[in-house]
């Protein structure tokens, strides 16, 4: 009898947590969608007109989100591109050009960097990059899309390096012996065999990194200049999460402004969902091609 009771207790607790998670997800989705309803119904398409500006507190408020959406995509896209180049290069470097012991240490080190909080990246970006930009590129202050992309790219590096390194190991186990037996040099093995073999994995990692980059708040907020205008490489810009963080504290609850912020986040979530779905489909196709 006592057994039955203990079993039931245990099962209930576990089911409770499972329900709790589903409840949490639904609660968040519901809340976000309901809060944004006002914006979608009363302002609607005006938020997405390409020449609408972001002027929520002026006499004739405009709630143009396009510049900010563009900024978000631009910064994240640039960051992922940079992170891919350096990340894959580093993963190849660690796998092929460094003795195993040192590679292991370096890899743990790089993965440790993934635990550095976002604020600190922003802080370093501010005191190093932005300061340098201000001096050298003739900008008024150094905050820019370029600075944000570099900072974000560095933040994404550990993720890209570790996922690529895993894929490389896998591909190595499959192909290295055969390639060496055929007399391939190390570079030929890497460029002609390993890289093509992991290309699908790389794309999947890229999508995931892109998704992460889209949602990054603090670091980007500190170095991008927080100007809701269309992004130029050396100019200031704004991203959706940074906009939210910046403005949410000073808005009245129930106002249109707040609702538009929620709508902006709905757009962000939609973009994230599309990214995830793309990545998932590519991953599926990669698996299918292998069988």
């Amino acid at each position, binding site marked *: 009898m006592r057994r039955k009771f203990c079993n039931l207790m245990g099962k209930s607790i576990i089911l409770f*947590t499972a329900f709790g998670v589903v409840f949490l997800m639904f609660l968040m*989705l519901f809340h976000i969608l309901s809060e944004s309803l006002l914006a979608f119904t009363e302002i609607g398409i005006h938020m997405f007109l390409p020449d609408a500006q972001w002027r929520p507190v002026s006499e004739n408020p405009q709630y143009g989100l396009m510049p900010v959406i563009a900024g978000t995509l631009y910064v994240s896209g640039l960051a992922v591109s940079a992170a891919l180049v350096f990340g894959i290069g580093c993963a190849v*470097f660690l796998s092929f050009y460094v003795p195993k012991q040192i590679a292991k240490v370096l890899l743990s080190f790089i993965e440790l960097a993934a635990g550095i909080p976002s604020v600190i990246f922003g802080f370093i970006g501010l005191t190093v990059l932005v300061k340098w930009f201000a001096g050298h590129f003739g900008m008024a202050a150094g905050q820019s899309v370029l600075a944000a992309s570099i900072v974000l790219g560095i933040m994404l590096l550990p993720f890209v390096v570790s996922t690529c390194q895993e894929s490389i190991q896998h591909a190595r186990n499959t192909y290295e012996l055969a390639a060496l037996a055929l007399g391939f040099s190390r570079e030929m093995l890497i460029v002609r065999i390993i890289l093509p073999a992991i290309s699908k994995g790389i794309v999947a990692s890229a999508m995931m990194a892109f998704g992460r980059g889209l949602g990054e708040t603090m670091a980007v907020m500190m170095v991008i200049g927080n100007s809701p205008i269309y992004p130029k490489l050396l100019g200031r810009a704004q991203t959706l999460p940074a906009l*939210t963080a910046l403005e949410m504290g000073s808005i009245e609850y129930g106002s249109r402004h707040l609702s538009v912020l929620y709508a902006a986040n709905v757009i962000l979530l939609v973009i994230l969902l599309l990214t995830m779905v793309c990545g998932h489909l590519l991953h599926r196709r990669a698996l299918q091609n292998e069988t």
Partner: protein
Amino acid sequence: MKRKLKHMLAGLVFCLLGIFTAGVTLFLFLYVFYKGKDVISLSFLLEEPAGVPVGTDGGIFPALAGSVYLGGLSALMGGLMGIGCAVYLSFYSPNGRFRSMVRVSIQGLSGIPSILFGLVAYTFLIYQLGMPRSLLCASVAVAAMIVPFTAIRAKKILDEKGREYMSNSISLGLSREYTLGRLILPVCLAELIETTALGMAYGMGAVAPILYTGAVMQSKIPEKLTEPFMSLPYHLYMLVNNGFSLEYAYGTAFVLMAFLLCIHLICKVISYFMDKKNCNRYS
């Protein structure tokens, strides 16, 4: 000759990329420690912030304590929920629609940007439910962030170690709950605690969810859950953003990074020793 040159060039490119990446990573750590070391003293660590504006003098102890409270509370809530969820996904109900819902929820939550947790907590908990800006409110927001973090890692741990044990145990007529309590959770305990500790480190470093839900620039160490608190990364952000004190900002960054690094290193050391112990067991 030409081919050899091409190969050498390719090799050089890879090496340069790799060295640059490793160098940048190293730089991150060294820079903060180098710039912050002068500010660090016992009084910096143990005193309250002072000066005009506040934060330009004195110490950061309340922020350190507040961060630990935040991290601990949210890791407790988020970690337990995440582990429970992982247990469900690993061992209960292999088919079924509810299971897919749970899986999708976890994946969904893991993709939501941290600021959204803060925004929802702000409008839902503080405005709609009337909670005060407090440690509790911020902890709930951060805990929600930690749930997918721990759930995904915990599921990996449980699947690796627990699957075979569960099948064998069920075939002996034992219940899943008995097996979990006596066999699987004890075996995985060290790794699960490690995952929760990493979740705590993740939560401690988060600023976006606590911006308007409980963190403030100056307060004493909260004695009740309903009081606001100070947080290290928030303090750092405020010092920098408002231009209060760059010097103290470096010191704050130093302390934050050192603390989190300690947690990570302790976890790595523990898992290294657990691996060794397991190898000895089989000899």
